[in-house]
Each structure stands twice: as structure tokens, then as C-alpha cells.
């Protein structure tokens, strides 16, 4: 295992510390317990937004703390959801009295830890609402499973719910907007290589030189199935098809197209995927009104990408366009 790390057990702490030093204009970092808050938190009268999850998905979530997006991020160990004793103080720290929304990716661990934290924070007098993100169409949603995973759609939920909070929406309204983003976004991913979790020290799965994993999550776990390597256009079609059919986008609708890198894929390749996906949407008469291309929610140094499509209406578009000032996403300010 070759990684730019010191002690594998100190990866999250040191990295968060470095993040805090590099972005001291935007955030404040608490290292024990670990959480990152917006420099000016709590913002008077504003609903607070807290998200979190395992580390290894950077820039998610700390990179999205700041004006117009998250008020706090709570990083767990690598690929391990954070614990209530981190989530609770983060929640208290960003509550201005207007309540706090938890944005939680739908994994058993994240759900249980945030659930516990929400209960305890409410016991301390903070009103909490939870937006559960579950946009991954690779996973079937049924009564007999843990349901769909939350993947790249999380970034869009954080941005848009963050803009709603920033414009002054109340607690239920912010939660509702976030829920609306979640209902209107679907994602699917592919891995060309595995990643190495620092404490594990070896690749999360083994792939032959000519194989790829379709339907992966963001934790280095194997995907739904393995197929022989193909050209980018073919892979793009394989990801886009289930996204579009599940979301049931209609001709004439506006969408946001998000091609997300898993961390180890060059940007040039993400744009090749974007090109095909955008053309495929155009051919169906769907308008790509907004786009996002880059490494926003990663699986360490995994090679691969995911494609997300978000159905837009005027309100979601306005909230997307609203100013955001964070380490990883900024415009309009």
C-alpha cells in the first residue's frame, strides 16, 4: 500500500486538521470529537444543515461546508459512519434556534448513528429533521433490503437544501426541498479499479485487467455485476439507461447532468463520459440545463465514475444557481 499518509489510524484526524488549516477563512475544525463547522455558525435565524458519513469521499462533506451549503460536516473513520458523540455537538453548534436538518445517506450505519444523534439532540431542545438520500438505481429498493444507497445525489441535495436554508426557508421547508431533490435524482456508478482503505492496506476487491464493476457504491464495495471492459460511450450508456428509465424523464424536461469522478479517474475521461451522456439526453429531447463534472464524492483513489440526473424545475434551478462559497464548490460570491 502506497499512500501519502502517516499512521493509518490518524488519517482522518490529520487530514481534517490540514483541511482546517487550508480553509481557515471558511471553516472551524474540532478534532476531538471530529467535526467541521461553518466559520460563522450558528447563523442567526437560519436553519442549520449537518451532513456526514464515513471519510474517504472527499471533498464530501467537509468541502461543502460554507455559505449556501452545509453548516457542519461530521467525518467518520474511512468508510465508517460517524458516531453520535460527533453528530450531537455538531448539531448543537449550528443550531440558531431555527432547527437543524440532517442529510443522511441511506446506509444502515449512517441511519442508525444519525437517528441516535437526532434523538439526543432533540432531547437537548434542538428540532431535527432528516433527509435520507437514496439515489442509487444499482440497488433495488424493496421491503426485504436495506433499500437504495445514497451516492452522488447527496451533493445535489446538500447544495440545493443549503440554498433553501440560506434564503431563509424554515425547517420543514428546507427538509421538503431536500426531499424533493432526492425524489428527482438517480445515479449509477462504475469502477475500473478498486481502492485501498488505509487501515485494510489492500485493494477492496480484485479486478482483472479487462474487467469493470457496474453498479458500485462509494465504499470500494464490489458492484452488482462484473463485465468485460468496454469503450467509454458504451459504459456511459449502461449507466445512463437505468438512471433515465427509473427517473422516467420525459421529452422536453430540463435536467442537471452530473458526472462524478470516483477519485482516480482523470478529468479528461469524465468529460468524455459527459459528452456522450449529454448527447444521449439531447437525442431524447431532454435539455441539459445545468451540469457538474468532477470529483465531488469519491471512493478514495478508485478509478471510475457515476452519472446522476436530476430533474429540474424553476425552483430547483434557482436554488442550484444561488451563491455558494465552500472549499469545493463556489459560485455567485
Amino acid at each position, binding site marked *: 500500500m502506497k499512500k501519502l499518509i502517516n499512521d493509518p489510524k490518524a488519517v482522518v484526524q490529520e487530514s481534517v486538521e490540514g483541511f482546517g488549516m487550508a480553509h481557515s477563512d471558511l471553516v472551524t475544525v474540532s478534532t476531538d470529537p471530529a467535526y467541521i463547522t461553518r466559520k460563522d455558525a450558528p447563523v442567526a435565524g437560519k436553519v442549520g444543515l449537518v451532513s456526514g458519513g464515513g471519510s474517504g469521499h472527499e471533498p464530501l462533506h467537509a468541502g461543502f461546508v460554507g455559505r449556501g451549503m452545509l453548516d457542519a460536516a461530521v467525518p*467518520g*473513520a474511512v468508510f*465508517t459512519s460517524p458516531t453520535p458523540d460527533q453528530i450531537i455537538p455538531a448539531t448543537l453548534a449550528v443550531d440558531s434556534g431555527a432547527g437543524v436538518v440532517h442529510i443522511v445517506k441511506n446506509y444502515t450505519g449512517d441511519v*442508525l448513528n444519525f437517528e441516535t444523534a437526532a434523538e439526543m439532540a432533540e432531547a437537548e431542545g434542538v428540532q431535527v429533521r432528516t433527509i435520507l438520500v437514496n439515489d442509487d438505481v444499482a*440497488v433495488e429498493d424493496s421491503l426485504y433490503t436495506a433499500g437504495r444507497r445514497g451516492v452522488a445525489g447527496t451533493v445535489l441535495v446538500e447544495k440545493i437544501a443549503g440554498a433553501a436554508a440560506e434564503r431563509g426557508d424554515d425547517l420543514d421547508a428546507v427538509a421538503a426541498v431536500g426531499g424533493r431533490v432526492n425524489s428527482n435524482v438517480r445515479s449509477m456508478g462504475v469502477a475500473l479499479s478498486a481502492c485501498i482503505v488505509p487501515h485494510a492496506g489492500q485493494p477492496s476487491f480484485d479486478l482483472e485487467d479487462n474487467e469493470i464493476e457496474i453498479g458500485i457504491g462509494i465504499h470500494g*464495495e464490489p458492484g452488482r455485476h462484473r463485465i468485460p471492459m468496454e469503450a467509454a460511450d458504451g459504459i456511459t450508456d449502461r449507466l445512463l439507461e437505468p438512471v433515465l428509465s427509473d427517473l422516467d424523464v420525459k421529452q422536453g424536461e430540463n435536467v442537471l447532468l452530473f458526472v462524478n469522478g470516483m477519485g482516480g479517474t482523470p478529468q479528461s475521461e469524465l468529460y468524455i463520459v459527459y459528452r456522450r451522456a449529454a448527447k444521449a439526453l439531447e437525442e431524447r429531447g431532454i435539455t441539459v440545463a445545468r451540469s457538474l463534472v468532477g470529483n465531488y464524492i469519491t471512493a478514495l483513489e478508485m478509478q471510475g465514475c457515476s452519472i446522476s440526473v436530476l430533474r429540474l424545475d424553476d425552483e430547483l434551478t434557482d436554488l442550484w444557481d444561488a451563491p455558494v462559497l465552500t472549499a469545493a464548490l463556489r459560485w455567485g460570491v
Partner: protein
Amino acid sequence: MGLDTKWTLKWLELSAEAMKENRSRLIDLDRAIGDSDHGENMDRGFQAAMAKLADAPPETPAAALKMTAMALMSSVGGAAGPLYGTAFLRASTAIGDAADVEPSLLVDALEAALGGIVARGKAEPGDKTMVDAWTPAVEAARKAADDGGLPEEVLRAAADAAAAGAEATEPLVARKGRASYLGERSAGHRDPGAESSALILRAAAEAAL
């Protein structure tokens, strides 16, 4: 041997040792159908519990279990943290202020632990989770206690059944937790949480010897 505070502490200590020793094995199991962290999580959690217990040595079995529950909850993370945290918390509550855990109370405590796991995680037997270790363990313990078994016999029955239950998760297709995302591909691998549960129950039995 009576199941007193000393036994409880010994159990927790042996559990911590087992987690350290089996750290990479549990990571490997989780690597196959999950995200490669279960061994790391459990090891970190039980180290934290050991540190807490050393800091403020508890006076009763229930107090020891409660401190462990809190330590696990605040340091394991992932799915296993809240599940084990709840399990130990409920076991602690079931034991109450008993200084010595009689076989029937022991069974109640194990059942409460399982109940906590199910209440939080909503898994059923056969879903390929730690529930598949705890369910047969509780049954076997109850049978042993009903048959008038000694505490160490009841614990051994639970440990043996948990080990068998963990092994029996291998052919199953996961329906809960992270492994469920793999669908059919999850079959053929042992569930890491069931395995760590079996190790913890084995530690309980060994602590009573």
C-alpha cells in the same frame, strides 16, 4: 464460577483481545461483501471500552456492560456501533443491580441484547447479519438453562450455537446491511458481524472457565 463483575470484566477483556487478534480476519470478511472496516471498527471500539473501564472501574456487571455500550456507541461507528451499543445497553438493563448473574438472568440478558439488535436493525433470521449468530445463541442458552446447566455450560452452549450460526451465514444472500447491495454475489461469504458476535460470545464462555 459465578458470573460476577470479575467475570464481566474478564469477558470484555477477552472480547477486546479477540477483536485485536481477529482484526484482519474480520476486515477480510467485510472486504468480500462490505467495505473492509468491520475488524478495524470492532478493534477500535473495544480498545475504547477497555480504556474507559480502566479509567473508572465499574462495581457491577450491569455497570460494566453499560460503560461498554457507551464506548462502543461512541467509537465504533458504522452499522455495528449502534447495534452492539444497543445490545450491551439492553443486556445491562436486563441484569439490573444483580451482583451475580444466574443462568436464567443470563438468558434474559442475552435475549435483551438480541432484542436490541433487532429493534435497531430490523433484521430477521436468515438476512445474513449478526442476528444469525445471536438468535441460535439465545435459543441454545435458554435450552441449557432450562436443563439446569451451570453458568459456564449455558455460555458454552450460546457460544457454540453462535459459531455455528455465523458459519451458517455463508450460503445466504444478504438482505440487510451493506452486503445486501451485492445481491446474489453476497452468497458464499461469511457475515463479518455474525462472526464478531460469535467471537464475543466465545469470550463470554471462556471468561467463565
